[in-house]
């Protein structure tokens, strides 16, 4: 089921929380809403669930506005970060809830309900836990119960608000892959909120980046990662070097780093900011002719994070280097080095002015 979000606006008191959000979500798509804290992700999700109403704009599903539909009729599955399980019911009763509350005419028989619960329990890898209470489960298990409870009503739309936020890194990784496979198997439209960019990049079909109630960029994970539309997106996707540079006659001027990839610029002479990811920096040993000194080396597993102090203004540039390579090149603290950037993006007045090579 596709969802058409049109010019959605919402204020809490005087504070604008959503400022004209336009987004079309295709049937069976898995969309991640990504953005910093307070950017309006939860508010948008709650409007989709029917728990909050916008001041302006519309949500259109199957050609009809959803805004006059109460949450009971929307058939959305909703999962909160802290699960919101019914603590006084067993796991089986939690999952059965959405079927039990139907009126007599549409309510399945007890046997059908129990069969459905069993089916969901095994789908969620929770078999045998049906008679326990939520307090007797681990965090990851509770999360799956919350998901099973939402799926029991066979929703066409699944809404997840930071579903894995409260779990440890390993469980998160497992659960998000598994969420992707459930999504594919059941053929729903899924919108999930996260502020973990890694999570979004890994499983989403499309990522929507929100900031201060506005959409900054919409795209596939590749598009977002390779072509961040603004410095905000670039920063949000993870640590990046920001180097102020001059532009003269269409060429970037920056000491030491050889930005050959930036050969043709169609911009006027002016200042700009060059963004280079730590992974895109090559470092090689130099004698006295180097342009930087290795200041610190920190361990990241196969990689190491290296801080380079540039000669002159002593700008610090971060690079991520392969540790084997570093050993071969005898790169260590205090070593003089050459620095080269393989890729980078140039922004002028917050607008990207070069494409990726």
């Amino acid at each position, binding site marked *: 089921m596709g969802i058409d979000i049109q010019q959605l606006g919402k204020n809490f008191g005087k504070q604008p929380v959503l400022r004209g959000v336009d987004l079309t979500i295709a049937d069976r798509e898995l969309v991640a809403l990504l953005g910093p804290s307070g950017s309006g992700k939860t508010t948008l999700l709650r409007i989709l669930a029917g728990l909050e109403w916008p001041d302006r704009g519309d949500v259109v599903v199957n050609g009809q506005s959803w805004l006059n539909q109460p949450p009971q009729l929307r058939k*959305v599955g*909703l999962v909160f970060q802290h699960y919101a399980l*019914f603590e006084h019911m067993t796991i089986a009763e939690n999952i059965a809830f959405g079927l039990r*509350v139907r009126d007599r005419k549409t309510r399945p028989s007890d046997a059908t309900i129990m069969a459905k619960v069993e089916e969901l329990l095994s789908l969620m890898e929770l078999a045998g836990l049906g008679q326990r209470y939520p307090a007797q489960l681990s965090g990851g298990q509770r999360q799956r119960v919350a998901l099973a*409870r*939402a799926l029991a*009503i066979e929703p066409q739309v699944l809404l997840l608000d930071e579903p894995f936020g409260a779990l440890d890194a390993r469980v998160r990784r497992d659960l998000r892959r598994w969420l992707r496979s459930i999504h594919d198997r059941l053929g729903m439209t899924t919108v999930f909120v996260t502020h973990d960019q890694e999570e979004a990049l890994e499983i989403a079909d499309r990522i929507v980046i929100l900031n201060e109630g506005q959409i900054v960029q919409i795209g596939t994970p590749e598009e977002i990662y390779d072509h961040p539309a603004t410095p905000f997106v670039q920063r949000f996707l993870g640590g990046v070097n920001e180097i102020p540079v001059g532009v003269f006659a269409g060429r970037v001027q920056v000491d030491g780093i050889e930005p050959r990839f930036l050969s043709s610029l169609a911009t006027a002479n002016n200042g700009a900011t060059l963004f280079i990811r730590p992974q895109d920096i090559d470092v090689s040993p130099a004698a006295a002719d180097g342009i930087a000194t290795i200041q610190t080396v920190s361990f990241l597993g196969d990689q190491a994070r290296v801080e380079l102090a540039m000669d002159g203004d002593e700008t610090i540039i971060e690079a991520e280097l392969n540790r084997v390579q570093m050993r071969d090149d005898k790169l260590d603290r205090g070593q003089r080095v050459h620095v080269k950037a393989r890729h980078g993006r140039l922004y002028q007045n917050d607008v990207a002015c070069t494409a990726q090579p």
Partner: protein
Amino acid sequence: MTDPMAPLAATRANRTPAILIAVGAVLTALFIAAPLLVIFDQALSKGIDVYRANILHPETLHAIWLTTLTALVVLPINIAFGVTAAWAITKFEFRGKRLLLTAIDLPFSISPIVAGVSYLLLYGGLGLWGPWLMDRDIRIMFSVPAIFLVTMFVTSPFVARELITLMQAQGREREEVAATLGASGWQMFRRVTLPNIKWALLYGAVLCNARVMGEFGAVSVVSGNLRGQTNTLPLQVQLLYHDYNATGAFAAASVLTLLAFVTLILKAILERKAFDRRS
């Protein structure tokens, strides 16, 4: 997993808990047990026959009946009021919410006597609506309905206060999930909210009941103190005491105390039952 008894075991080495328990026991004996004992001691000071006669006196019997009736009328109304008010305040957004919250606390913050007097000024013969009521032959002041009304007013915050604190802490997410799963408002309340608040509700009801039965100030203003007609137990106790019938006063007081015990025992039984059902 850590041993849940560990912190207790660790403190057992020092004497602080023993001292605290002793202080608690002494204070309980001095300020709670002793006055209760005095009531029964005085009530029975002239023998069991006098005690029985005192209690079976028609005026006292009527006071017992009126107090029980007041509880039976007021308690359900205040429970219903408390639950709906707490539910509305904690689970929904609406205009005038602040005002409602303040209004709920009002009876706690004004003296019961003042409450009684203001009812008198509204419904009394010389009061604001008095003449209108009199024209229609409706008598509220100095009669049983007046007792119901002021008691209701004075004891209305108990249940609501107890529930609001808890329900605010519990948040709305469970109800919101229930709504998306298709639960109607009533189902949401019955299946999700109520099971999570039932202990606080019971506790609030017990507190409310204790106050309903014991309320003196407001009731004394509006009841008119008609013996055998509008006297509740607390009023009867005072009346007998002023009549220099100390034994009678203490006999009536002992009934009030026993009613309180009955309430507490009922609460304990309910708790026990619910506990058994869970385990």
